[in-house]
């Protein structure tokens, strides 16, 4: 009986961990986090935007690295249309030193990131969103002063090879918002690096 309880408890915890967080249509919280330029940044600081491409990201994860160039291209393509990329590192930097703030600055300079890259240093933001991995995209549409979750998931359907992509899930979702339509699909999944917490 105790074992059964244990099993249910684990199942419950697992479901809890995934069940938390935002769904489509939820109002997303703003935040004030340290950016690689040394200033604190909130989403409300952006002027004249239609939304934010919020990507939980980091330095070390090979899936992120595979997508860095595409993140740059997405920003260059969609920031002029009112949807800047904002990368946010949710990893604990003791658990994963390669994702330290100093290394974030280095990576941003190496790759010449045209987008902002902030650190969720207290790990308070990612659980509210329900991010579980990097990269993990939350496309937010700005309605009045609120940020509404419009799409959650993957950037596209081929992490390995940008040239072999069949569906650009994220780009299609932004195009849909710009056209005044709902993204389809609104949610996708992708393999990614689990978010690192301190043991």
């Amino acid at each position: 009986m105790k074992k059964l309880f244990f099993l249910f408890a684990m199942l419950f915890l697992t479901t809890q961990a995934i069940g938390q967080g935002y769904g489509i249509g939820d109002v997303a919280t703003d935040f004030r986090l340290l950016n690689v330029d040394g200033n604190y940044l909130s989403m409300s600081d952006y002027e004249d935007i239609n939304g934010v491409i919020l990507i939980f990201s980091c330095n070390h994860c090979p899936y992120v690295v595979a997508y860095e160039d595409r993140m740059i291209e997405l920003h260059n393509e969609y920031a002029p249309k009112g949807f800047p990329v904002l990368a946010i590192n949710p990893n604990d930097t003791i658990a994963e030193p390669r994702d330290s703030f100093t290394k974030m600055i280095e990576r941003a300079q190496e790759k010449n990131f045209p987008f902002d890259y902030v650190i969720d240093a207290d790990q308070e933001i990612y659980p509210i969103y329900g991010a579980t991995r990097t990269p993990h995209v939350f496309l937010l549409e700005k309605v009045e002063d609120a940020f509404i979750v419009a799409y959650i998931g993957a950037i596209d359907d081929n992490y390995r090879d940008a040239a072999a992509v069949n569906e650009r899930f994220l780009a299609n979702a932004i195009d849909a918002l710009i056209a005044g339509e709902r993204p389809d699909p609104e949610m996708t999944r992708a393999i990614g690096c689990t978010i690192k917490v301190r043991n």
Partner: protein
Amino acid sequence: MVKILFILLVIFVGFNSDVAANQNEGNEIPVMNFDTFEPRLQQDDDKIHVINFWATWCAPCVRELPAFEKLHENFRDQGVHVLLVSLDDPRQMDSRIKPFVDRMQLQSEVLVLDDPNSNRWIPLVSEEWSGAIPATVIYSRDYHIFFEREFKYEELEEIILSIIK
């Protein structure tokens, strides 16, 4: 005739499991797409199947691998089959995957799942899976459970014992 067939079948199955047991030593690690892999998620036999999704670059995955190895070692005679499904890029087979499997001396069965469109197949493994690894499926004929988390050996053992009982 039926008896001969049965004997042949036993020999064949026995031979196959020998091959499976030694396959990491020969260093031939199979690479397959999801459609080829999928039957492994629903084998209709008397075993308890423990399928762990991992990658060489995933620190928590690497940290928990010894727990799955120990599970294989302690429970394989009790019908527990551990399958380690690597999500590494198969282009790194010789540079990274094989050297890692050798260095860790992995005894459980290892294969590489090579299917970049993970949005299609993640929900087919489990609707509960967001896509983060490590992730583990444990199932038998009348039991199925999924975890997106890192395990310690004692936790795995507790689950297996509760199923065997």
